[in-house]
């Protein structure tokens, strides 16, 4: 982002509020600073950092005021999104002055708001948003890594979804495993704790595939992995992420940042 300054967040909030309100009712002018029924706040998230050199994360929230004349009608957050960059330094070259690099953008809420906020940022700071697509290879990595994480509380099942292109409609195969079993398998595959190599991931997946094949006679290796869901987080190849466990948040975000940066370059 060009000429983004953390000091002007309040100003940005005002402008963005007006912009969102104007976009929502096309053609109707909106005075900046007015009580619009829609309030956007930009704030910093101080804890969301990997290393000290990372840029501070920015949180954007759109709250709409309810129209009902209750006195303590609170603002309901209808959309939120945040920019962050976790441990991105070793991957990015030194970014010159005037430029702020926050490579990951996560959004939660209606797509229309995402579009509006995104276009405002693009127009104001000359940045570029693109969808993060996760390849099956990376999804497999995620499956392996997240299965290996220790989770104390209740573990949900580990689920892998595969897609087979068929006519007329694509066929989705969902493969669910008990997380304890998956973890046990992974523990046998992984040689050094804390390190994951490509061969280990491949081995892990091959084991799963062959197990499936034994029962159903379907070669999953020929299909395309589209979704991985573990007790820590779930990820879809379109970029939909669900983070289920707050303890591993930074880890998941680090991985996603890495993917984002590799997609940019």
């Amino acid at each position, binding site marked *: 982002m060009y*000429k983004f300054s953390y000091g002007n967040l309040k100003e940005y909030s005002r402008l963005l509020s007006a*912009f969102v309100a104007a*976009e929502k009712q096309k*053609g*109707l*002018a909106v005075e*900046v600073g007015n009580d619009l029924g829609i309030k956007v706040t930009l704030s910093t998230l101080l804890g969301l950092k990997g290393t000290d050199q990372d840029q501070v994360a920015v949180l954007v929230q759109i709250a709409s005021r309810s129209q009902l004349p209750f006195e303590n009608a609170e603002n309901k957050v209808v959309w939120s999104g945040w920019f962050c960059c976790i441990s991105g330094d070793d991957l990015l070259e030194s970014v010159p002055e005037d430029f702020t690099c926050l490579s990951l953008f996560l959004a939660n809420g209606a797509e229309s708001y995402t579009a509006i906020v995104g276009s405002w940022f*693009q127009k*104001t700071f000359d940045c*570029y948003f693109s969808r993060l697509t996760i390849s099956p290879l990376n999804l497999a990595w995620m499956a392996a890594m997240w299965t290996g994480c220790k989770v104390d509380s209740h573990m949900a099942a580990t689920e892998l979804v595969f897609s087979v292109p068929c006519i007329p409609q694509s066929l989705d195969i969902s493969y669910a495993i008990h997380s304890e079993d998956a973890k046990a398998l992974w523990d046998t595959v992984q040689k050094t704790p804390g390190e994951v190599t490509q061969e280990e991931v491949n081995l892990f997946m091959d084991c799963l595939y062959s197990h499936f094949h034994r029962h159903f006679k379907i070669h999953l290796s020929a299909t395309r992995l589209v979704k991985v869901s573990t007790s820590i987080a779930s990820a879809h190849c379109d970029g939909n992420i669900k983070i289920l466990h707050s303890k591993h948040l930074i880890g998941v975000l680090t991985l996603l940042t890495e993917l984002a940066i590799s997609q940019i370059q």
Partner: protein
Amino acid sequence: MQQRENAKNPKQALQVRRSSLSAWQIGERTAGPKTADLKSAQKHEKGKQQSASDRAGNSTQDHLEQALTYFERVKDYIPLKKNEVLQKHLATVESIALQRGLSPEGLDVLLNVALSGHLADTVNTRILKCLIPASVIAESSVVSAVSWLCVGKCSGSTQLLFLRWLIAMFDFIDHKEKLHALYGFFFCSLQDEKLCPYVCHLLYLLTRRESVKPFRVRRLVDLQAKMGMQPHLQALLSLYKLFCPELVSITLPAKMKTYFKNSESLWKAAINTIRRRNQGTSPTSQQLILGTGHPQSRKRKWNTQLILPACSTDANNPTRSKEINHADILSHSESFPVEQLHTFSQLLQNIHRLEFPSQMGSVLRNSLLLHYINCIKDESIYLRLYYWMGQTLQEECTWYKLDNQQYEEEFKDFLDIVYKTECFLQEGFSSCEEFLYKSLPLWDGFCCRSQILRLVSWIPLSSFSEMKPHLCEPLAQLFFTSSLYFKCSVLESLKELLQNWLNWHVMQLDVESDPKISPLNTTLSGLVNSVAELIHFVGWIATVALHLENNATFLLYFILDFYETQHSCPSLVFICVRIQRALKSLPFVHSFRYRTNLVAAKENELIKKTILQFKFSSQTYQEYNQYIMAMVGCLWTSSAFQKDIHPQGIRLDPEVLKKTRVQEVRNSFNIVHHPALMGYAILFLQQAWPEDKTLNFNLIKGRRWNWYLEYLYVQGLQGLKLFIESSINRVSQVSQTKSGNVQV
């Protein structure tokens, strides 16, 4: 009435009369009490008086003056139907106005009359409709006309018509400072619903940054809330947003095209006439700033459509949002909004305070901003453009991401725009280069072919060994497996590439005085190496291509074209001599060009040696010499295919020559027997021995060889002449020559 000294001459009728009204008044004071009837009577008298003098001068001019005087004086309400005088004067004014236009003073008079409410509405309407300026409109007359609006005597429809007239004639008003001062007055007239659209249009023309105040914004927003989404209000609010985005925000619906009703229609024909007549002295019409947005043709999810952003001012300017610095306003140091940049002269005037648009990608469409980029040395600009372009190219590439295949047309247009920008700036973009390196291995050679090949020609100069795996290998793969047309296109783009490198280098030589400016890897030897390797590469693929395509002449044309561009190249020509084999079946044109190439290269090389200091290895010199000798051997001494030790030479074993079953092989390439030059030989023989029906080529030797040579020179084969004279040292004039020392 006094006779006027000047302006009798019809030629002078077009000139602006600078006389004051007092000249008329002097004449009138002698008239007496000013009632309408008396006036008309007086006018009748004067008309009679005038009729005599009419023959002398310009009668229409007089009539006009009379009419103007009449209108100036009239104070009471006169119904049109009954008063013939009024009708007559009105007709005069109308006809003259339509023919020539009215002077500023005349306009002043008529405006005052029309808006004062003295006359009937129909008269007022007719007057306003014929208020066509001959040259300019005085600002004072407009101001006084506006002041009549305050009195409130004229009817609503007249007011409306006046506003429309003002909008239509806006460009003809000479100074506008007072009008700007009246901005607040016009703003108040927004109340009136009927006038509102036209007032908005007028305000649109008058608005400057200082005019945008918060209370005005509030007023307009309230109006909009009351009246709904009127296009004129939207337009005015958008203009406000343009100047002060921190006060108001509005998003225009995508499909709107026209915002203001056309006020010009009544006067359009007349205005065009005036403009044509004044031809450049009249001001150009102000273009609406709300330009045509890029139409969104298809419904796509946001940000998946390839849109070049429109130029919009950077709202993210910290100096603007907070307290307005009054000193700044006074010193006019505010920046010039980018949307208003339409002409080159505007660029020159405002170059010190121009800001870049908030999205750098929008400069691609704007040639004026590209000029500006050329002047500015700010790194961040290039960086912004680099990031944006890199991302866009990657995301929108149709073979990179399979989803994008349907949007090929848009991608093609985008690549076209990038190419045009590169040609304009005369340098390539590094983001474009990286995109090519990434995508060429995946390219099928078919999609967006011409665009990609053109972009190849703008790859910036760098070490060839770096380029080789990324560019040359995929390109070579595609090259060998594709059609003739593709091969020729590739050769052409490589030729352009070479050309661009050489051009760029020439420019660098001028700049070399400042070592900071020249980037890395551009030493002279680096250039020579890269160029040499490129030529080598092209030579290689060209040879193979010729084999594959069976020496197609179309291909040959492109190859020769490539070699011709090396005339300015300081390195030596590496001729791939296998091409000479193809010369067997060459039509004349190519052979000639080939020789011209060779000769010109030699000539240039001699010149260049004195200018630049190159370290040519002796090896290259030897190669060059051998080529020359081979050529000379073919052409001159009838000793083709002999002793050529060069590995790429054209030495052929005698057995192979026998197989070709060409008789007299040794002779077959000299200047007489060469297929390309045989036509000339025949003509020569016919001229020399017209009686002789059989063509005996062997006659051409000895003295006649020289004649033949002269004949060829006369026919215009200058290239040949140059080559022979520079390469061949004739031992004796009379006897047959030997190919002697090859001069280097």
